């Protein structure tokens, strides 16, 4: 595909393909160069496009003050709360089992680009500029263990045709709206919008708004998916600028290996047959949430749904999972109250108190 919009300067030190006759070539003086450069700078200062770009570059530290459980230890096997999924997505999600991730061909799959907002990771953001004009060609967001680099093209190039390949990072363009960077992503691969198997199709598109206020960055993502969503799924999260973070920019290497003998080369895909998912009652048992809400859907996202919930919800007498308080505190040193807490898993090491967040 032609890379429109990107200039291709002659490499430094390269031979001029069409040597010209060197007659009447005046070697410009240093003073003249300075004068011209100063003039150009003044003109550029006055006439530069009136955009309110702000610098998004830096290391942005995650703050898991929302949906900590979903983003850290992970959601329950059947927990579709807050997702405007349709019947088809629900059926596929109910057929999912995490054992699928043991299949060698699925061990190294990436999440789609919207996982930046869905997931728990910090990230690094930087821009790439044209070496001649100095204009921003693209913004980049670092990869994570299970997500590739996101490139946001800022040079006005069009999105590829519909049938173009869908890379892991999708194809994203961006434009400034005031101080907000708005991006649009197409050509994603199929993946998940929740780690418990709620699917996201390759027809999904993502609009993201990057809003920086001082050292706080908020990203709002709107995911549309005609295959799996009844209405756009919106999510807003915030990060804090942290110069002390060291964030790798490229994805970690991943080598698939046979983890489970019965899945290695046998053609078996672990799944749950329709009507056979035994986890559909778990959220009701643990948290008193009625099953119809647990299974998600657009109706469940709006305040009026609380009227229906009021007659169905039974508040548990006590917390039953992840009840230790903010991790890393003295309060978490005692695990006896953390019924079901992942930190009770043998071999799990509690982070020292000074490493919170």
């Amino acid at each position, binding site marked *: 595909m032609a890379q429109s919009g990107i200039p291709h300067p002659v490499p430094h030190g390269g031979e001029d393909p069409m040597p010209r006759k060197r007659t009447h070539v005046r070697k410009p003086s240093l003073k003249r160069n300075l004068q011209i450069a100063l003039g150009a700078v003044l003109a550029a200062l006055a006439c530069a496009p009136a955009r309110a770009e702000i610098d998004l570059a830096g290391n942005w530290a995650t703050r898991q*003050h929302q949906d900590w459980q979903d983003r850290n230890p992970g959601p329950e096997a059947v927990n579709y*709360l807050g997702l405007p999924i349709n019947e088809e997505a629900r059926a596929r999600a109910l057929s999912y089992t995490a054992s699928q991730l043991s299949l060698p061909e699925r061990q190294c799959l990436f999440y789609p680009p919207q996982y930046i907002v869905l997931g728990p990771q910090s990230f690094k953001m930087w821009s790439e500029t044209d070496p001649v004009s100095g204009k921003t060609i693209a913004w980049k967001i670092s990869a994570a263990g299970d997500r590739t680099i996101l490139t946001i093209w800022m040079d006005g190039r069009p999105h590829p045709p519909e049938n173009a390949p869908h890379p892991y990072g999708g194809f994203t363009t961006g434009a400034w709206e005031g101080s907000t960077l708005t991006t649009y992503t197409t050509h994603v691969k199929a993946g998940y919008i929740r780690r418990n198997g709620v699917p996201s199709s390759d027809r999904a598109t993502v609009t993201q708004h990057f809003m920086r206020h001082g050292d*706080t960055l908020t990203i709002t993502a709107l995911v549309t998916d005609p295959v799996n969503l009844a209405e756009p799924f919106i999510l807003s999260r915030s990060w804090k600028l942290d110069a002390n973070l060291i964030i790798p920019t490229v994805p970690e290497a991943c080598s698939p290996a046979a983890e489970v003998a019965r899945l290695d080369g046998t053609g078996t895909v672990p799944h749950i047959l329709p009507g056979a998912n035994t986890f559909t009652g778990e959220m009701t048992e643990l948290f008193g949430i009625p099953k119809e809400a647990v299974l998600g859907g657009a109706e469940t996202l709006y305040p009026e749904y609380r009227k229906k919930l009021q007659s169905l919800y039974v508040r548990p007498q006590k*917390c039953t999972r992840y009840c230790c308080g903010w991790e890393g505190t003295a309060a978490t040193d005692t695990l006896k109250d953390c019924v079901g807490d992942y930190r009770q898993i043998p071999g799990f090491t509690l982070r020292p108190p000074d490493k919170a967040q």
Partner: protein
Amino acid sequence: MQRNDSIWRGSRCTLLLAAAVASLCASRPLAAQARPAAASAKSLAPIDLTGYWVSVVTEDWRWRMVTPAKGDYASVPLTPGAKKIADAWDPARDEAAGEQCRSYGAPAIMRVPERLRISWQDENTLKVETDAGMQTRLFHFGKSAPGGTPSWQGDSAAHWEFPSARIGAGSVARKMEVQSGFGSLKVETSNLRPGYLRKNGIPYSAKTTMTEFWDLNKETNGDQWIVITALVDDPEYLQEQWVTALHFKKEADGAKWDPTPCSSRW
């Protein structure tokens, strides 16, 4: 020598031309320059937040749409002292004490599933009403907030933040205020009556302050969303700043506006 003079004349011309262009371009009207000094906050508003808005609960559903169990404080960086208070939460006691609005104070109210009705109370006061809990927040522009007795909604000082950029570096950097129709609202709230960050008794103290940034995003399908970034600081009950972001979708009218009093249980 004559050749050199010629070069210098050419350079001076270039410089003069550039300076003239710079001067002309710099004199173009900018949004900031067009603003009268004494204009009201309403007239200066870069974004229109008025109207009816509904919260769309796609995050923290289990802690927002229902009242979670006692001791369920996931995601909140509370201190051990706050944990003790939360463990002693008793909604019946709050109700008996007439404190059923404790989870409807400013640091919590925008996370309650609800509809907002936003209007201008006067030229410099933006009014945000909630149907859930029937609370009213007043954002005061251009003057210090009233002060006085602490209240659930406290005192909120507001100002518009306009998109701006500085181009250049060092002494030639030049501030540009650009793109009218864009901007955000910054709100700083203090003087709060102690309450709950979450319905199940996670406390915030009277020392709590909150900074909010209200952004407006318009989508290509016509939808409009308010995105609120909230930074809550409480030296008594939070180990670190509590940082959350949430969103409200614009509705055509108030047909679904449903005022409901505070409840300590639901």
